[in-house]
């Protein structure tokens, strides 16, 4: 029993985090939202070189979670969950490591830059064509409606869904950690009434609650990575979404009005967090699935 990353896994976490820290991911995110995919696609290929696109088939769900936590922490753009978590399991035998793909769930995220687009219809995977785009709450996740075409051979779509939901949970965890870190830095430096606002207990206690919520989301995410089941994945997604949402709400509050602006980088994570709460199974869906599973096991 060793419930912590191995040296090798910690090394992988560091290298992906280093790569993303050196790249200007926020600029790539903003450009992507504005329709300029150039910087985001460069970032995509560097992450692919690091192996992120082959983790789902060649590594373990723990590595998948490590990568997605880093993607969340840095708000990297692109259909990562779709292309690197869901579709590799949904399409076994199809090599997606060198391409980008997306799938409508129910919207196809970033279909305009995907080499292939899929849709699930009545429990079967179909190839699909992007039609209309709709503005999303997170403009760096561009949403497209699709029309489904031919059925394609597919693998275990439930397993693919669970890995995607788990990756989403890990991304939410990373986003929450980032917002907390940035908020802590901000409240140490912002003064009002002659003191750093971080010395006021009303601020400290809110940030402490965020630390606590994230600390208890992490073991559910990595616990689910060790044993991916509908129960463990739903638990991870629920708690990670809750903790990230708390981080976002508190993060916005302690920043005051500057946090409410588009120009402040905090906006990237506030919008991403809200979008991912609804993606890959809403909170209500996962809660119901978890309850049903728990009751069935009694």
């Amino acid at each position: 029993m060793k419930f912590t990353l191995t040296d090798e896994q910690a090394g992988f976490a560091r290298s992906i985090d280093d790569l993303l820290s050196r790249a200007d991911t926020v600029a790539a995110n903003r450009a992507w939202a504005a329709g300029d995919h150039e910087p985001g696609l460069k970032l995509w290929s560097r992450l692919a070189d690091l192996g992120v696109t082959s983790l789902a088939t060649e590594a373990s769900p723990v590595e998948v979670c490590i990568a997605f936590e880093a993607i969340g922490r840095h708000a990297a753009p692109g259909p990562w969950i779709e292309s690197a978590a869901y579709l590799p399991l949904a399409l076994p035998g199809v090599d997606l490591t060198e391409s980008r793909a997306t799938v409508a769930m129910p919207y196809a995220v970033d279909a305009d830059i995907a080499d292939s687009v899929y849709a699930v219809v009545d429990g079967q995977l179909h190839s699909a064509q992007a039609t209309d785009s709709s503005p999303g709450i997170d403009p760096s996740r561009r949403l497209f409606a699709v029309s489904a075409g031919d059925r394609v051979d597919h693998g275990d779509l439930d397993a693919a869904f669970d890995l995607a939901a788990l990756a989403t949970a890990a991304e939410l965890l990373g986003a929450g950690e980032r917002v907390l870190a940035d908020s802590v830095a901000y409240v140490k430096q912002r003064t009002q009434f002659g003191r750093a606002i971080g010395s006021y207990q009303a601020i400290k206690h809110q940030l402490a609650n965020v630390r606590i919520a994230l600390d208890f989301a992490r073991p559910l995410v990595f616990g689910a990575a060790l044993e991916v089941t509908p129960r463990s994945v739903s638990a991870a997604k629920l708690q990670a979404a809750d903790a990230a949402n708390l981080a976002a709400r508190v993060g916005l509050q302690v920043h005051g009005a500057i946090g409410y602006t588009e120009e402040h980088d905090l906006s990237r994570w506030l919008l991403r967090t809200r979008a991912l709460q609804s993606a890959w199974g809403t909170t209500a869906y996962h809660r119901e699935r978890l309850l049903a599973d728990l009751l069935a096991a009694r």
Partner: protein
Amino acid sequence: MNLDFSPDELAFRDEARAWLAANVPAEPLPSMDTADGFVAHQQWERRLADARWSVVSWPEEFGGRGASLVKWVIFEEEYYRAGAPGRVSQNGIFLLAPIIFDHGTTDQQQRWLPSMATGETIWAQAWSEPEAGSDLASLRSTATAVKGGWLLNGQKTWSSRAAYAHQGFGLFRSDPSAERHRGLTYFCFPLDADGVTVRPIAQLDGEAGFAELFFDDVFVPDADVLGEPGDGWRVAMSTAGNERGLSLRSPGRFCATADRLLDLYASVLEPVERTSTATRVVDAWLRAEAYRLYTWGTVTQLAGGGDIGAAGSVNKVWWSELDVALHETALDLLGAEAEVASTWTDGYLFSLSGPIYAGTNEIQRNIVAERILGLPREVRA
């Protein structure tokens, strides 16, 4: 990264499970805060000790099994899953014993540990005072050096189990001229010593779960000072983490309650009660599961030579709020029946004290903010 147990750990778990299945009393024992219940709980401690299950992590020479931290958590999970009684000896075993092992003399270890392991001697923690709660270092009870020992004077309060316990342990101000965290000394003393008056205080449930203690020139020999005179704060703080963190609040307790909550949910037929509580039932289970997994992370860290440190405060807020949520949800599920006294109402009343004892949750949040997040310290008078 893995959550697998070794064959040896699995064998240990099976042995514990089998023993508990054969020995846990079928009927819950009466409250340990009543005269009869106290004795019944002491007898249970004796039974545990006879089979060497009372202090599994202690060295064998003191009645333990020298079990690793992993095995200790495994044992706790089995213990609560089996519905075994609360531990009347917990203050001694979990709060005092680690200090005796770390700071006690060989003589103290031999005098105090064996009877603690069998439940023959029950210990009470005497830290709080009427004017020193959250601000513990402001305590005023005194210790005055005399020939061969010390004289204790003053008042302690909220001392759990003290109404029926035999021995107390706590901090006294031995050097009034020293800065407030210095000049404190850690003492052990019999609760029936000359000059000690114990006045039980009934808790919300009407039972005398804690007591106040009055000290009037109580003589304590030098041999009963734990650690060095004047070093009491440092000695005491080495157990504060135990109280908040892992060793007193094993996840087994909350996971077992979460399982019982699911059973309750499954058995409740009133559609209104079910629909209105479904979300909270899931969330309470989820938080217990998060706590269970979090604990394995802590165990890994400790086994690797790490220290829980301020993370004990993260833990404390979580388990205490979880316990309230589990019980509030159960009472809401019970509907009108919740008014009738039951193990759920008992558990509920007890859960309400969680956010207060072992350092209030406000104090824990201050610690998380200052020591983990690195935020500026509070402005203090």
